């Protein structure tokens, strides 16, 4: 059973005025079968955590560890992390002109599995994954994310999640910019993934809205680069009622 362990993670970015620390000691353990929600105000470092785990070169890990089943994730290249079983659904998926979705998905699947998928079942799998996310099969012939609406980009991320089927999925504000119908469709995809039982989900969100459709086992409130409070689903309900006010006041003292 997969376990992602984050211990005392400190991360900084380079700015004009020198390095700026964004994560200030994050501890988090996500085991298979669990869904964790990270909530927090803008600028609290939620996305930095997601991109640091995935290995974006912009973020410098200054101390701490991230391991997946005991393996040192921080020592891996970005693609090695993905092949080890990590997946990041991005807030702003990138356009790749001239590369078709079909080619992209097949190339990624081949890289993750170490062998090309069986042609006959693969085409069926892709079409099913697309239609499950309410995307027309013709998306396969379009260029990756090029000309996609915001909602289509997010749904395309979940198509990839289902096809690549990682051990741990990190969803960075997958709910942002989605209307209620798209939010339901995306949530169903995440729930299908999680319902396999041996998968871990780290759901990063600013709003509680998506938590009506994806039930977290644990909720972590992120403030100023670290976890300020942890609890069960009831913590999300409290945030729904009261917002981040009391955390911001505490952080500002």
């Amino acid at each position: 059973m997969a376990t992602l362990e984050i211990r005392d993670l400190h991360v900084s970015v380079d700015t004009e005025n020198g390095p700026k620390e964004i994560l200030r000691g994050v501890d988090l353990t996500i085991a298979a079968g669990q869904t964790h929600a990270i909530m927090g105000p803008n600028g609290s470092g939620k996305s930095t955590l997601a991109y640091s785990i995935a290995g974006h070169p912009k973020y410098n890990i200054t101390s701490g560890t991230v391991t997946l089943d005991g393996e040192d994730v921080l020592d891996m290249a970005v693609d090695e992390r993905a092949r080890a079983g990590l997946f990041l659904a991005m807030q702003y998926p990138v356009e790749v002109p001239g590369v078709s979705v079909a080619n992209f998905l097949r190339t990624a699947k081949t890289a993750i599995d170490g062998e090309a998928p069986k042609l006959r079942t693969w085409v069926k799998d892709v079409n099913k994954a697309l239609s499950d996310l309410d995307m027309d099969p013709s998306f396969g012939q379009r260029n990756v994310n090029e000309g996609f609406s915001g909602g289509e980009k997010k749904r395309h991320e979940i198509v990839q999640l289902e096809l690549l089927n990682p051990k741990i999925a990190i969803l960075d504000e997958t709910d942002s910019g989605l209307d209620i119908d798209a939010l339901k469709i995306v949530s169903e995809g995440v729930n299908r993934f999680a319902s396999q039982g041996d998968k871990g989900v780290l759901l990063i969100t600013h709003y509680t809205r998506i938590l009506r459709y994806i039930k977290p086992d644990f909720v972590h409130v992120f403030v100023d680069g670290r976890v300020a409070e942890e609890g069960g689903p009831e913590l999300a309900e409290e945030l729904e009622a009261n917002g981040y006010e009391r955390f911001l006041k505490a952080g500002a003292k």
Partner: protein
Amino acid sequence: MSAAETLVATGNKAHSHGPGSPVPLQARSERPTSYDVADFAVPNGREEEWRFTPVKQLKALFEDAAGTETPKVDASGPEGVVFETVAADSLKVGKPQDRSAAIAWTHAGEALAVRIPVEAELTEPVHVNVASLGGRGFSHLIVEAGRHSRAIVIIDHTGAGELSSNVEVVVGDGAELRVVSIQQADHESIHLAQHDALVGRDAKLHHVVVTLGGKIVRIGTNVRYAGPGGDAELLGVYFAEGGQHHENRLFVDHEATNCKSNVLYKGALAGDHARSVWIGDVLIRAAAEGTNTFELNRNLVLTDGARADSVPNLEIETGEIEGAGHASATGRFDDEQLFYLQARGIPEDAARRLVVSGFFNDIIGKIGVPEVTEHLHDVIEEKLARAAELSASAKAVVGQ
């Protein structure tokens, strides 16, 4: 490309068409042409048409003297195609626009003419190979597609040496001709060329310039229309590596009515002093009502130390046109694309290949000659592998 695209270098500093724009010293149509070498001084690099070119390395090709070799020209094609040797000035569709073209015209002496008979529909491409043999030489080709014919002519430039060439293309009324000129001589070679095409009434020309090899390759392509309804699609692909200079200069002269031109040139650059130049001149004369033209140049800069210049120019003398536009963009390799692909498990080198092949994908799809596109694909892969080695060794040096 994405919004993250950055402008690296364009020849015209600001993009302005409004009042106060600098007036060119000379309209494109007024640039002199001549068959007489004496009408062109030896370029010093300050001339408009030479200002991007490393003229100091072209001394031998500016010398008004016979070649030290005759390049080896082999031609073959399906039944019906006629090959014959003719006098250089038997057609005169082309007229040299610079010194090197005039010298090539004079000293090639003869031309190889490839004639596609009237109404012939060729099922196989015609192949012409021009091989430089190590010296300084000249070549002259004439391609004439008869009325209502359909054909593909592939001109492959190989070998090593200094070559200056003229290519004249005539597309008969209602004909469809595809001419592909491939430049892949060895690393130290120099190739200067002028292509002139005359597109007949309701005829269609696809002209494709593929530059993969050579230290300096400079191709001027000029298109005119012999009657209304002509259509010219001008495509170019280049990939300049360290120390290579790939230059393409286009001039589409719209004088007949209801003609179309569509220019698409795409290039990649990798390595120290990799250099590309693209000049796209389009002139819509007062008589050319109903013209529809668009030109686009895109450059993808893969490493530091490379430079792409891109200068589109549009002169319009009538408002009675269907459309006219141009676009140019030079972007660096987008690291966010790389991150996205790697985050899906795709190794870095494969991700780079995917992004670059994606960049060239649309233009390669338009070339429409499988043997050319397959070869192009292979050579791009080789060049990317070399670029990857370069950046890996650069990283190793930085990391020390």
